[in-house]
């Protein structure tokens, strides 16, 4: 029941964040605007960037047009037109194309630019895609705010005893700009030990993000974090040695997704590890 409510809440949040609007009397088209965090990998390395995407969806003809905006000017950088959509009852809509010719906002073909290996999906709670530009730049994009509903917290005390709390969930909110590559991680319904009061939400602010060496995930790190509860710092819950990763994961040929966040840290002389997933691990994707 609780999970269902959370999913509904998340669906409402997603709708708001992405400014979804259905068009037409028969509601057969929709537009989703989303700010995405990108892992942009080329021969010189991987960088984390931010870009704005617009998805124009034609449900009648099962087509999607993706407009990728310039991050700063908000002018359309290129448009991927009329990509076929597929529908899966569990995961929602997915799209893929081996090669796409981008166009400008006015519809002119961009000749010196090609997109290949496009794969994406949009459904609650995900809206992810990846593609390759000109055969040598791999882009993986995820929303700049995401919630991982299925989260386990495992705490190991100094004496070696362990405590497990399974009813929490995690939200990641990215702050990517020219000055910072940071993410605020908020844990909901959290408890590290049985005696600890159940905390409705606890935010670890300003965790530094770096690309993984392989360029396919985000690494999280912080030497020291003062958590915030209801926008108030809690020095007594100081966190040290924070490390972790956000792992966008596409399983080619399948619609199963296991995107997750893993992290560990020390707090109040305990070691805490968190394993947060968008879907139930080892689940067939049904939510």
């Amino acid at each position, binding site marked *: 029941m609780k999970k269902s409510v959370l999913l509904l809440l998340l669906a409402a949040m997603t709708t708001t964040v992405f400014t979804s609007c259905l068009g037409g009397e028969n509601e057969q088209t929709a537009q989703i605007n989303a700010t995405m965090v990108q892992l942009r990998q080329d021969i010189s390395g991987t960088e984390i960037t931010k870009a704005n995407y617009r998805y124009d969806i034609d449900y009648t003809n099962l087509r999607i047009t993706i407009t990728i905006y310039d991050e700063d000017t908000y002018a359309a950088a290129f448009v991927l037109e009329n990509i076929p959509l597929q529908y899966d009852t569990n995961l929602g809509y997915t799209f893929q194309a081996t090669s796409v010719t981008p166009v400008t906002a006015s519809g002119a073909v961009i000749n010196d630019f090609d997109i290949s290996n496009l794969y994406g999906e949009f459904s609650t709670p995900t809206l992810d895609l990846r593609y390759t530009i000109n055969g040598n730049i791999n882009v993986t994009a995820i929303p700049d705010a995401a919630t991982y509903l299925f989260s386990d917290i495992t705490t190991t005390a100094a004496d070696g005893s362990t405590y497990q709390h399974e*009813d929490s969930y995690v939200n990641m909110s990215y702050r990517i700009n020219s000055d910072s590559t940071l993410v605020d991680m908020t844990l909901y319904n959290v408890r590290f030990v049985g005696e600890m*009061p159940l905390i*409705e939400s606890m935010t670890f602010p300003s965790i530094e993000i770096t690309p993984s060496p392989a360029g396919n995930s985000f690494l999280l790190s912080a030497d020291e974090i003062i958590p915030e509860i209801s926008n108030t710092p809690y020095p007594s819950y100081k966190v040290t040695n924070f490390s972790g990763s956000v792992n966008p994961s596409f399983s080619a040929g399948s619609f199963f997704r296991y995107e997750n966040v893993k992290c560990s840290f020390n707090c109040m002389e305990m070691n805490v590890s968190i394993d947060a997933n968008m879907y139930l691990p080892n689940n067939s994707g049904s939510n």
Partner: protein
Amino acid sequence: MAIAPQIACADALPDPIPDDWTADSVVTLGELSVTAIKYGDEVANKDISTTTIGKKDIERYRIFSFKDASTLVPNLYIPDYGSRMTSSIYMRGQGTRIDQPVVGMNIDNVPLLTKENYDLDLLDIERIEVLRGPQSALFGRNTMAGVINVTTLSPFSYHGTRAMLSYSSGNTYKIGLSTYHQPSERIGYSVAAQYSSTDGFFDNNYNGSDLDWEHQGEGRTKLQWRASDDLRIDNVLSFSVSRQGGYPYESAANGEISYNDTCFYRRANISDGITVEYKRPSYTVTSITAYQYLDDNMTLDQDFLPASYFTLTQKRREHTLTHDIVFKSPERSGKAYSWLAGFFGFYKRTLMDAPVTFKDDGIANLIEHYRNQANPDYPISWETRQFVLNSNFKTHNFGLALYHQSTYKVDNFILSAALRLDFEYNHLGYLSQCDTGYDTYVAATGALYRHDDVKINDPGGQTQTFMQLLPKVSATYHFDTPHPISVFASVAKGYKAGGYNTQMFSDVLQQRLMGYMGFGALYDVEDIISYKPETNWTIEAGVHSECFDGRIRTDITAFYIHTTNQQLTVFPDGNTTGRIMTNAGKSRSYGVEVAIKARPIDPLTVSVSYGFTDARFIKFDNGKENYSGKFIPYAPKNTIFASAIYTVPVNCSWLGNITFDAHARAIGDIYWNETNDEKQPLYCLPGASITLSGQHYSVELWGENLSDTDYRTFYFVSIGNAFFQRGKPLTIGATLRINI
């Protein structure tokens, strides 16, 4: 047969005064009572376990409300604690402190759908019938352990004026006046009123005030019209008002009753019931229509401490309309087959305001301390030292039922089968509100860090529907003996309606409030707000017998009950102080009931009622502990009532009889909690009376709890503190009754 002793007197008594034996014999012939309507004139030898308390015993044991009948009926325990609102009934190990009762109640045929209405003082009760075991097939919801039917005196059975004056310990006095007239053969009417006042027995050590004081009154008119031999109409209009203190809860830690906030309960009731019976040669139809209005206000110092934690007020206005129409084959038709079929419907509308006021100590210890312990570097301070968590509720509840019973007599066997289809709709609308706020400071500098408003305005609603099939089958065998002996066996399903955890909303609000500071349980309100019906199956077998020329009447019953979807109070997930009613458990209960009334010699009547119950959880996990195998709390293992009444005829013109009564009630063990580590051992309360009776009066000197036994009637825990309520101490009094 022994010769009765007799005190010589010069004056002869004009008419003999009925003795106890005949006066308390069950005479229901021709009455328009709900028991007679559904079970026929003679319920005592049917396929159910019954106890009937007649007028003499009602007067002798000063039974004004159903609570006073506790233990006179085997396995019936109605603890006297709290206030008139707390009418918990335990029967055969079944019962709950709050919400839906397991025993139904009818007063002059009016079914009381709200348990908080049960505890009414009534003048001139003629008879109390307690039908033990599930009565759901004929009486429907909330009768899974039995039904209590109270019938007041009829102007057709008594003519004249009655007055009653009683004074007893605790500066308790009660006065009653009633008049019964039959101006014609076919019309009878009566008017009755009573008022009582008491200072109570317990004081509040905090300020020395009386706690369990009460002023209450009741009035009733009864109009009975026998329009023809075939048409009878009865109307009973009653009202009652009660103002009381109540809640003399003493700390288990120091034995003191000491709290600082006022507790009281106020209630006003109006009830009108009209019963119409129309007889045709092939059937009889009876219609019972009733309207009830309840307006009450319970206000509690919910922490029951000298400190100012929080108070609760619960104001309610409730309108209830019920209608029961019964068709049945003619009585005494001589036919082997008889039948009964009926339709029952009710509508209940309740408006309730239930504000919880958090006060200084509650804010400091339950909110600020809890929060600041977790974050001493940025402590908070509430913006005011008192605020309100407000909850408003509006419920619409209606039910429809169809029922049928077929009875077939084959030689000495009577076989019976009944089935009821019961539907219920229940909608709760709620609005939870709070408007307060707090400041956060930097501990190091004392500077204000931020201010947060706490504004909650959560409306919502939920609807439940229940559908139940409630069967009963039974067989009765009457032996061909000079004196009636019958044995019976039955299997029946009982049903207790589902409902809503309105008492949970203050905790939900409190947790929402804590959530503003990041703490608190995340309640799924939709999940915890409601609970489903509880059902049970009861197998019972019994014997009704009379022997030695009817000088010994015996009723023995053995029963086994299996309960599923048991409504139990559990702790929700998380570290909360809340309790919710949920369908968490299964239980079983078995036991025996023995009722013997004997008249070994003419002036002496001896009665014994004994009930034994072994009621345990089969499955009960409250989320924190598993209580399977433990005794069900609050339900006593044993109830015992024994009495000896000795009547000496005097035969004076001014004095007819002198009656000596000695009796004792014993109850226990009662376990107070699910862990079974707190209990009230078996205790005994001896009582006695001497009554001088004349043609038109009686004077009774009486005493209860003559041993001044110290015992407990209730136990609970609030904010981690345990509390008891002590039972009433030694009480003596005198009662004068005048019948003109």
